[in-house]
């Protein structure tokens, strides 16, 4: 099992490394560099040369990549091109704000998805299932900006319950984000719940049809005992991986939602940095998001292995 874990970890590390190369090459492709963005119209001749020399932009790409990667490993993400500020400082609050969104959506969404998924599976093809499943398809396929705008229209413009736009600055204390943060969390929860509940539903249905569930049923074990003792522990295993994938997806989907709500998180910072050609910031954010994605997936594999005795012993026996 340890060997298996190490292998997974190594694969994750390789993925992050390839991502860093892709990010670096991708950002190199962007027209202009930090100096042309910083100097704007004065970006010509001697001044441009000096600026590039100061920032070390005229060195070969390989040298710049290795320095950037080595610093990033140490947690030093470099200096932003425009503001001349440490990126780790800039990113810190934004990351915290995005995590507030994500954790809010997870706290609300995962229990809701489990509950609705199980209900839909146990009452398969009945009205409860049809309502839940249809709503889920609608929620997960409609673009986030559409559901976000719709929720703003209903809860903010028509009902006036919560503000439809976030005006708090990025470095404000977390408490200041309430109640503004509720609507963005609502949109994220909606989409996330839909994804997870579909997997929960289909895996509960699969387990219901398994031999051991049928056996328990024929032995005369009470229905609810079968559900809680036999079906749920087995059915919820595949859910771990989908939760991980959904969290990873959430980091991308959050970009649009943050833009709609004007929320000062990592996603909006990414869009701003791309439009401003603030390349070091773009690189840093992309690297953070990709590392979180790989990390979350790794964690999900680990949890699945711990939770599933079959996987553990299988690898021991193979040795």
């Amino acid at each position, binding site marked *: 099992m340890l060997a298996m874990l190490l292998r997974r970890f190594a694969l994750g590390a390789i993925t992050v490394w390839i991502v860093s190369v892709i990010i670096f090459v991708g950002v190199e492709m962007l027209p202009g560099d930090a100096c042309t963005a910083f100097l704007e119209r004065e970006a010509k001749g001697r001044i441009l040369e000096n600026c590039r020399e100061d920032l070390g932009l005229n060195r070969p790409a390989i040298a710049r990549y290795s320095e950037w990667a080595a610093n990033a490993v140490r947690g030093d993400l470099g200096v932003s091109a425009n503001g001349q500020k440490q990126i780790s400082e800039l990113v810190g609050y934004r990351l915290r704000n995005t995590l507030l969104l994500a954790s809010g959506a997870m706290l609300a969404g995962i229990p809701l998805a489990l509950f609705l998924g199980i209900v839909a599976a146990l009452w398969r093809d009945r009205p409860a299932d049809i309502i839940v499943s249809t709503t889920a398809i609608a929620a997960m396929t409609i673009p986030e900006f559409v559901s976000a705008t719709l929720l703003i229209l209903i809860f903010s413009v028509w009902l006036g319950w919560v503000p439809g736009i976030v005006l708090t600055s990025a470095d404000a204390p977390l408490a200041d984000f309430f109640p503004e943060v509720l609507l963005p969390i609502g949109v994220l929860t909606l989409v996330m719940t839909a994804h997870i509940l579909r997997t929960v539903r289909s895996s509960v249905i699969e387990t219901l049809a398994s031999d051991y569930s049928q056996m328990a049923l024929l032995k005369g074990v009470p229905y609810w005992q079968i559900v809680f003792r036999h079906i749920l522990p087995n059915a919820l295993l595949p859910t771990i991986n989908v939760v991980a994938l959904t969290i990873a997806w959430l980091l*991308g989907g959050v970009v649009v939602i943050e833009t709609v709500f004007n929320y000062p998180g990592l996603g909006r910072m990414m869009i701003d940095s791309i439009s401003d050609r603030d390349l070091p910031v773009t690189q840093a954010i992309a690297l953070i998001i990709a590392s979180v994605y*790989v990390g979350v997936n790794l964690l999900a594999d680990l949890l699945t292995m711990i939770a599933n005795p079959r996987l553990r012993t299988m690898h021991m026996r193979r040795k």
Partner: protein
Amino acid sequence: MTYPTTYQRRGLATRLSGTIRDIAARPSGAIGLGLVSMHLLLALIGPWIVPYAYTEMNPALVLSKPSAEHWLGTDHLGRDTLTRTLLGGREAILVTGIATPLAVLWGGLVGVFFGLAGGRLDEVLMRIVDAFLSLPWILKMLVLIVTFGTGIEVLIPTLAFFYGIPVIRIARAATHDVVARDFVQAARARGHGRPTIIWRELLPNVRDALLVEGAMRWSWMLLAFSSLSFLGFGVSPPTPDWGLMIADARGFMSFSPLGVLAPMVGLSSLIIGINLTADALAKALGIDRAQKAPV
């Protein structure tokens, strides 16, 4: 060269109409097919049935309420909302309609090839695929769009490229299911080369999986395209587009909610239609797509 067949080969048209009948047999599939065909038809004949020109502005009627002349009211420039909503899907359908087959084609071919070849090269490719999938789609798209501009000549290849990458995975997995079967071994024993095996033995067998995947990719692509338009990186004004319309009308929601609601209904009905069709198609072909990850 002809192969002796023990069964009657059906023509493409027969098989296609059979599949369509299977989809329409389910109520959700029938609704989905209906929605998709309606949108395709609308995209084709739209310009001839709309009541106004989409650029026609009426300064006297800005953000007006629904009336006999303007059924859904007008937008902030006094343009007819109904006209712009009816035309709002054409660009999206054109771009994604070209990009989806391209994505399935290149992703499918690469996936089948590496699924068959296996080995060290396959390992390396899968790591690169994983790396690409771990970046949010919007970042990948924006970097290319900021580099090369926002026209459809950029959007089509960009969407086709990035949405082909997850197809590689599906095609590779489907190939792995097939490659150990007897008929592939038989083809190898007959001395067929790799291209022949891919074309004659593998592709027909992974086709169903690719078809369902293609339908799903189409809906994700529409989502990406309209999100890009919404963020101001897609269609450029004054071309009517649902994403752009929602972005424009968002500021005036409290005066004229129809300005955002109309394009929302247009976009959502098309995307839901595609998904219902894809679901019914998957069930008709015997593929479960509930387990699919949201990448």
